[in-house]
Every structure is written in structure tokens, then in C-alpha cells.
């Protein structure tokens, strides 16, 4: 059995945190078992006289305060250390390669920006940030990559995000780690981390039927989205917002919802808004957008989300995808 490799700087930082936790645990265990053993050896029945119980009672406050505050101080340090490593997971860097991963009983479907698809396999380049956009077609799954020390639940009907920058090449297993029914334990696959040249070669040699952006643009017209939502090319006027808000510049902008709170329109927002259209604050449009739940499959939704992102040219896009995606629009 080999020790679990670290395939990212984040994985190394997690291992350092775990080492810290192990050291603290061993120290406390040493203390507890040591004191237990010492007590048993020193104070066995019949060997000693009993200490003065009344005196012990008076001493107890000092001890209680000492070990309670020591415990609190150590815990608070651990809390801060672990929290700052967790927060980074919520902040994917701009320009990360976006790969769409859909779980269904019992397989993982993977779609690349260039239109490549595969099942139970994920190819990524070394040294570049990758963002996985995860969703499920049925029950809750979980996408777990132990060598990167990350995982996230995969929920039906909404997007979750997981990002990483791999720093070594190789093939490593990923798993479904949320129990999802009969063949749960067979819902695994291989993550292959390639160097830049090999990754480009792999993208080119893998058959693709049109880039995600092209597919998404076609879906945008075919499903009637362009009839209401102004986009740069298909509505009469990119600023006509009488029937629906414009999708030009929507990605990455701040949207205020009817309940008053503002959200940044990221990939997850775009996906969830198509499936379950939110109400905007102060909005009054001629028509109400229907839900596309069950109308559009998850791979179509992925394409639409990829297309909508290109309508915000000021937001850095994944530069790598354009090599194999003619007409990506940026």
C-alpha cells in the first residue's frame, strides 16, 4: 500500500493541517493515557492513604479554569487555521477552465468547453486552474478527488463548484462519496493530469461535435430564449428589455432579487435561473419565464451556461478552450 500522493499545493496544505491535528491529538492522548496509568500505578487500593478530599475541593477551581481556557485557546487556533483553507474553495480564480460534470445513477458524464465528452474519466492540464461545475440528474451524489483533498456534494437541479490547480501529472482515482443507491461503489473514475502539450494533444484527438459555446448558442435560439432575452446578435436591439432582462453582460454582474438580497451571477446562478427562474427586484416584464426543468437536459444546460458566459466579454474567459473551439466569441 502506498501513501496517498499530493497532487496540488492545496493538498499539501491540507496535509500540514492534518499533521498539526495529529500532533495535538497524540499529545492529548499521551497526557490522558499517561495520567490514567500513573494514577493506577500510584493510587492502587491498599498502597496509599487517601489525600485530603476537602483540600482537593478548594484546589479544583484553578484546575478547571486552566484546562478549560487551554482547550479553548487550542481549539480557536485550529478553527482559524482550517477555516482560511476552506474559504479558498469558494473563490475560483477568474479564467479557470470550466468543465461540466453531471452525475447520474451510476456514472459521471464529463463535458469540456471544446465539446469533448467522456464518461467516468476526467482530463486536466497541470498548472492551470480548473473549475468543475457539478450537477446531478437524479439523486445526490458527491464528487471526491482524494489526491487533491477536495470533494463536494452533487445536487439535482442546481450547480455546485469545485476548483483546483493540479501540480503533478499522473492518473488518480475519483469517487462518488454520497450513497446514491444500488451501484454506488462502482461510480468511480480516473482523473488524468497531463502536461500542457499532452493536454492539447488529448483535446485535439478526442472527437467533439461543436464547442459547448456553439451548441449553447444554437440552443439559445431553438428554445426561444432569444425571443425575449436581448443578446448581442439575435434580438432586434441588445438593450431591449421590455420582455426580459438582457443577458449581455449578465454573467459576473450583481443581480438584486425580489427578496432583496443581491447575488453575483456566476455559472451556478445562470444554470439555476434557467431551471428555476428567480424574480428580480422591481422587475415588471410582459411575460414570465417558464421553468426549463425537465425540458433541457443537464448537458444542454451546460452548453447554454457556457454560451451565456461569452456575452460578458469583460470577464476573463477560459483561454484554453478557444484553441479547439472555433467561434467561441472571445
Amino acid at each position: 500500500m502506498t501513501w496517498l500522493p499530493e497532487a496540488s499545493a492545496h493538498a499539501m496544505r491540507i496535509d500540514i493541517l492534518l499533521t498539526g491535528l495529529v500532533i495535538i491529538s497524540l499529545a492529548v492522548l499521551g497526557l490522558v493515557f499517561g495520567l490514567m496509568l500513573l494514577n493506577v500505578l500510584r493510587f492502587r487500593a491498599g498502597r496509599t492513604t487517601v489525600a485530603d478530599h476537602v483540600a482537593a475541593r478548594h484546589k479544583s477551581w484553578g484546575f478547571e479554569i486552566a484546562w478549560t481556557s487551554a482547550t479553548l485557546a487550542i481549539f480557536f487556533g485550529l478553527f482559524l487555521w482550517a477555516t482560511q483553507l476552506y474559504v479558498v474553495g469558494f473563490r475560483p480564480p477568474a479564467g479557470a477552465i470550466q468543465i461540466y460534470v453531471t452525475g447520474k445513477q451510476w456514472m459521471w458524464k464529463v463535458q469540456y468547453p471544446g465539446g469533448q465528452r467522456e464518461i467516468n474519466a476526467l482530463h486536466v492540464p497541470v498548472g492551470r486552474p480548473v473549475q468543475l461545475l457539478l450537477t446531478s440528474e437524479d439523486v445526490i451524489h458527491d464528487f471526491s478527488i482524494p489526491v487533491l483533498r477536495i470533494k463536494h456534494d452533487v445536487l439535482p437541479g442546481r450547480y455546485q463548484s469545485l476548483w483546483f490547480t493540479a501540480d503533478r501529472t499522473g492518473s488518480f482515482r475519483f469517487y462518488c462519496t454520497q450513497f446514491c443507491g444500488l451501484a454506488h461503489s462502482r461510480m468511480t473514475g480516473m482523473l488524468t493530469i497531463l502536461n500542457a502539450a499532452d493536454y492539447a494533444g488529448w483535446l485535439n484527438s478526442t472527437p467533439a461535435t461543436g464547442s459547448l459555446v456553439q451548441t449553447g448558442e444554437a440552443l439559445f435560439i431553438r428554445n426561444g430564449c432569444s425571443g425575449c432575452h436581448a443578446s448581442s446578435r439575435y434580438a432586434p436591439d441588445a438593450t431591449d428589455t421590455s420582455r426580459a432582462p438582457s443577458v449581455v453582460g449578465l454573467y459576473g454582474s450583481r443581480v438584486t432579487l425580489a427578496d432583496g438580497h443581491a447575488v453575483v451571477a456566476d455559472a451556478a446562478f445562470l444554470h439555476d435561473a434557467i431551471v428555476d427562474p428567480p424574480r428580480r427586484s422591481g422587475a415588471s416584464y410582459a411575460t414570465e419565464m417558464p421553468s426549463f426543468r425537465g425540458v433541457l437536459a443537464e448537458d444542454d444546460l451546460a452548453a447554454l451556461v457556457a454560451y451565456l458566459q461569452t456575452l460578458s466579454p469583460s470577464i476573463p474567459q477560459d483561454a484554453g478552450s478557444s484553441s479547439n473551439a472555433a467561434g467561441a466569441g472571445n
Partner: protein
Amino acid sequence: MSGTPSPAVQQRSYLWQDGTLRSWLLTRDHKRIGLLYLGSITAFFVLGSIGAALVRLQLLEPTGAILSDATYNRMFTMHGVVMVWLFLVPSIPVTLGNFLVPLMLGARDLAFPRLNLLSWYLFVASGLLVVYGLFRGGLETGWTFYTPLSSEYTQGRVLPVVLGVFLNGFSSIATGVNFIVSIHQLRAPGMTWYRLPLMLWALYATSVIFVLATPVLAITLLLLAFEHLFRVGVFDPTLGGDPLLFQQLFWFYSHPAVYIMILPGMGVVSEIVSTFSHKPVFGYRFVAWSSVSIAAIGFIVWGHHMFVAGTSLYSAIVFSMFSFFVSVPSAIKVFNWLGTMHGGSIRLDAPMLYAMGFIGLFTVGGLTGLFLASLASDVHLTQTYFVVAHFHYIMVGGMVSAYFGGLHYWWPKITGRMYPEIWGRVAAALIFFGFNLTFFPQFILGYEGMPRRYATYPAQFQVLNVLSSAGAGILAVAYLLPLIYFTWSLFRGAQAPDNPWGATGLEWQTASPPPVENFAETPVVTTDAYDYAARDGRADAARVDEGAPHA
């Protein structure tokens, strides 16, 4: 020493007065109801263990040694559901708690004897429903019933099991109400709150959780049943529901339920450590109030089950912080037990071995809990075997050790017979060894990335899985031993004196086994709990050296 008890004892004992089946099934005596519960939860413990044994056998081989995927999934579901609701949650409160609460209070019975009997019938009915569901059709959702797997995608019998667990909740609530009212109302003259044995503080805190958390589980399971039956959209996103809502509600009960399981164990350990150190519990008030704070803080940590589920960053940070807080009172208890032993007069009889096993294994469980309360490391470790190992250290290493310790400690009082001490110590040592061999390798498996609830696994994990299964074999034998020698002792065990351990509680001041009415006359309490100086003074005023008053 062995042989039949004297006719005088027999006549007064709750065990022998009216031995008809009818008198047992309609009894309102808390002691008999405790024994009815003991019999039922032992049966469920055996059933849950069979599930565990099959799971461990299956995992000997990477491709699965004996079961199909479907059967494996049903077996770990059965193991979880049966162990959590039909063994761990009731365990100490309904057996030792039922038997001891009135005795420790100096009362004749619990406040509501009929409610107490009703709770047992509810428990049996719920158990039968669950077993029916698990065996007619089977259930493969895990004990957590996550939606939409449980509501829309399972082929198993989710309804009877869910209704069984629903009923089970009412049994818990009945016990909780009974304990709370009894502890408030039935304390003997002079028994102030700070003179209560710590076992009662722990059971009081447990009862508060029973009463406040269980209704939320009941609501959640009803909603699940509605969605399953009538397709009302609550949790299923295709019906407009929210799958995370189920997890929020489920863990709002199920995390406090962890404290339902462990707090009574802590109470038992406080009693045992004090008795076998022959010394008052160090920092009595801190130990007492730490039970209450565990129960209180335990209500606001449920979100730590959902750090990778898709809840918000802020909720994760807040729940992580509270999760660190809740481990502080547990640490206080551990340090105080060690302080109790210090300067005592320690005897290593079987109950004390179990209690020390509890302290060690619970500490491992608590420390590994820090790995999971820490957000970033939780992301890597959650939903792997690390979590399985962690909660088994708390539930089995901790709670089951305390339960066995308590059974050995009060066995003479309950039955009027001594268990064979040598075998008690052998079993305690064997359980400790077998337990660690079973579950320690699982921490490493989890770090290496092996997901839980896998019927098959990559070959690189086999060595550790074989070690774990070997440990489970030892553990199975170790758990059988008490079952055998306890039964043997009922017929052949030495006659137990009233106070074989030289302990201080009121329960030791009456006969072994106690008479139906518990005490000939209501005891009057004049000293703190664990006042050995006063007790020894009474027993032998001239004694200076307090060593070993062996029975």
C-alpha cells in the same frame, strides 16, 4: 455463596414477587420495565451486530466476498437503523436509567409508571415495524434516509421503517418526560440538585434532548412519508422541493441524538470512576453543568454534517466554531475523571476497566472529531471511513463500553447475583483490543480516500480492510462473553451483598435485588453525593486507612 436466595429476600424482591408472565407484561414497576427493555434491546443489539458482521465479511475482498451490491446496501442500512434507534438511543436511559432513577432519587417509582410501560410497548411496536420493513423488501438508503434517494428512487420498504422510527420517537419522548418530572418532583428529603448523583444530571440533560429534538425527527419523517405517498413536493427538486432541507431537519435531530447516546454513558462513567477510586468526583459542579452545556450547545452544531453539501460559507464557519465549542465540556469531563482518580484508592474491577476504556476511546473519538470540525480537513475526510471510525469510537468505544461497564457495576443490584469477576476483566480487555483493531485501521482508510458505504473497493485498500474485519471477529467473541456469563450468573452467580463496591449512592442502601417498594422507608439525605468520608465513618469510625473495603 451460590445457590438460591434466602426465602426472605425472595419474598420481598421485585424479581420474585408474582412471577407470572401476565404480571411482567402489565407491570408498572420501573425495575421490571427496565428488564423488559434490557431483553428487547439485547435482541436488537444481536440483530444489528449480524448486519455489521456481514458487512465486515463482505469487505474482506475488494470485489465483495459474499454479498451482492443490493444485499450489502441493505445490510449496512439495517445495521445503522437498528443500532441507532433500537439500541444506542434507548440503551442506557431505558435499561439502567429506568432501573436507577427512582432508586437514586430515593423514590418508590418514576412519576408516571403507566407512561413508562406504554413507552416499552411503543418501543416494541416500532422495533417490529422496522424489522418488518427491513426483512420484507429491505431498505437501501442508509440510516440517514437522504432525499430524493429515499423518497423517489428507492425500491425498498421505506414507509414501514420510517413509521417505525416515528413511533420510536414517542417512546423516547415518554421516557424523557418521565425522567424530567421524576427528577424535579420525586427527590428524597434532603436530596438537593447538587447532591444528585452525576448519572442523574446526565440523564436529565439527555431527557431534555429527547423531549426537544425528537419531535423534529417525527415531523421530518412524516414529511418524507407524505412526499413518498402523495408526491407532495417538500424535498424532491423535481416537485419543487429542496433536498438540503431534509438534511437540515434530519441533522437537527440526529446530531443532538449523538449526545442522547453519549451523555448517559458519561453519567455511568462518573459513577464508576468515583466508586472505584473511592473518592468524590473532582469538580462535581463542572461535570454536572458540562452535561447541561453539551445538551444546549449540541442543538446548534448540526450544520457540521453539511460542510460539503452545498450550504453557504457563513453557515459552515458558524457551525464549525460551535462544533469546537461543544467539545470543550467533553474535555472538561475527561480531565475531571482523571482528577478524580488522582489521590484515590483505585480498584481495577471490571466496571472500572470498562470506564477507563471509555475514557481512552472517547478521547480518541473526540480528538478525531476535531479533524471533522475543522472545515478544510473535513472536506477531505468526510464521507470516508475516517468518519465511520470517528463515530464508532464515540458510539461503540465510548457509549457501548459505558453501557457494559454500567451493566457490570449494577448487575449485583439488578439481579442479586455477582458476575464472575475474572471473566468480566477478560471480556473488558478483549473488547478494548478488538475494538481498536477493528476501527483504528479505518482512520487510515479514510485518509487514503476510501468512501463509506462501498460494497466493493479498489484493491489497494484490502490490507487495512482485512485487519478491520479480523478485529470485528475478536469483537464479536468479546461481546458474546458477557452474554454467556451474565446468563450463567443468574443461576450460579454468588449471592450479591447490598453494597458490593463500597459505593455511596442511595441505590446501594437497599437490598440486592431491591424490594418492590425500593426502600422500606423513605431515605433522608444528609450529605453530598460521593461523600466517602461520611460513609466510611458510618461503616467503621475507627478506620484511618481507606484502602480496599472488599465485599
